């Protein structure tokens, strides 16, 4: 009887541990169970990425459609090369779409906003978005403002 009780409690303990790990995986770290290879990747070159990091959101009209996979320097053109994972069900981004680096709130995190263009053909795996707009860097903005003031 005592051994039975011990077995039940140990089983309960182990189940509790597994449930907690599942909770950490799904609820806390937001791990997605769906396969990753369904996503397709799109590249974009930016003059300046500001504070963009990998795993930042990629949005269309504010709705998340993917995330930033990696950020590297394009060694040929010496600009930032951002690789994005776009969810596979978003297959209607036209090839003349544009990408902007935006900021959530005044001091919030930075993310990429995609605006769709007018072409019939849509972006496929490995395509490049040519029309990009860099992050708004506060120092540049202030510098331009002061420069204009002096010129006036």
């Amino acid at each position, binding site marked *: 009887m005592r051994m039975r009780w011990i077995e039940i409690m*140990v089983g309960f303990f*182990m189940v509790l541990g597994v449930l907690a790990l599942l909770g950490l995986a799904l609820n*806390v770290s*937001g791990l997605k169970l769906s396969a990753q290879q369904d996503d397709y990747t799109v590249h974009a070159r930016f003059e300046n990425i500001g504070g963009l990091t990998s795993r930042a959101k990629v949005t269309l009209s504010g709705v998340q459609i993917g995330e930033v996979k990696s950020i590297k320097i394009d060694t040929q053109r010496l600009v930032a090369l951002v690789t994005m994972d776009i969810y596979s069900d978003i297959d209607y981004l036209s090839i003349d779409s544009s990408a902007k680096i935006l900021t959530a709130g005044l001091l919030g*995190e930075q993310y990429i906003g995609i605006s769709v263009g007018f072409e019939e053909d849509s972006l496929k795996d490995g395509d490049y978005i040519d029309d990009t707009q860099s992050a708004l860097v506060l120092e540049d903005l202030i510098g331009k403002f002061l420069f204009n003031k002096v010129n006036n």
Partner: protein
Amino acid sequence: MLNQFGSLGRAMLDRLAGIGRAGGVVWQSLVAKPTPVVMFPLLLKQIYFVGVLSLVIIIVSGLFIGMVLGLQGYTILVDYGSEQAVGQMVALSLVRELAPVVTALLFAGRAGSALTAEIGLMKATEQLSSLEMIGVDPLRRIVAPRLWAGFICMPVLAIIFAMVGIWGGALVSIEWLGIFEGSFWSNMQNSVDFSEDVLNGVIKAIVFGIVVTWIAVFQGYDCVPTSEGISQATTRTVVYSSLAVLALDFILTALMFGDL
């Protein structure tokens, strides 16, 4: 002068011999032909004593630590208008640091000292020698199940600690301080990475479990078999495992998160 040097050297040699004996205990008790039929009920019993009976202290302290983190994080972050980030702060500090470390310290105090005292008393009352007399290896029969139980229980307890702590933080910040629930969880999910943060925390917990159980079992097995010796061994277990956990935590953090 020469005598002092001599005693210093002797103390160092004693330490080295102790480390050697500790390695021998683990080697002899764990590396052998597995005998699951005999071992499994013993292991279950030890998991019950080491893990299940530690659940209450782990859950209660996890809850309160999470709640304090939520409260402290809120009062600091609200000055910068970014109190939504409290979920991220609570989750990252719990999963990366506090869950493995605090669980290991509590585990050393709750389960490690009990293991040392139990094995030490067995040695003092000659139960270990009697086992040897009737042809049962005490390392296999007494020490091995306790080692395995500690290795298994410590990561499970740390995971439970982290989850309960995050719930405690969520309770304080969502229910009592009125942070918007969606941004609390989504901020957390955006910043916590499963392999980077959660799995590294679990690896830490596994390492701490091995170290704490090893120290506890060895101190019990190697103690001077008197009442005073047992009390000293129990103290040493708690002191050595706490120091080892804190020092190892720095090393593991530097390896995992810092670019040293």
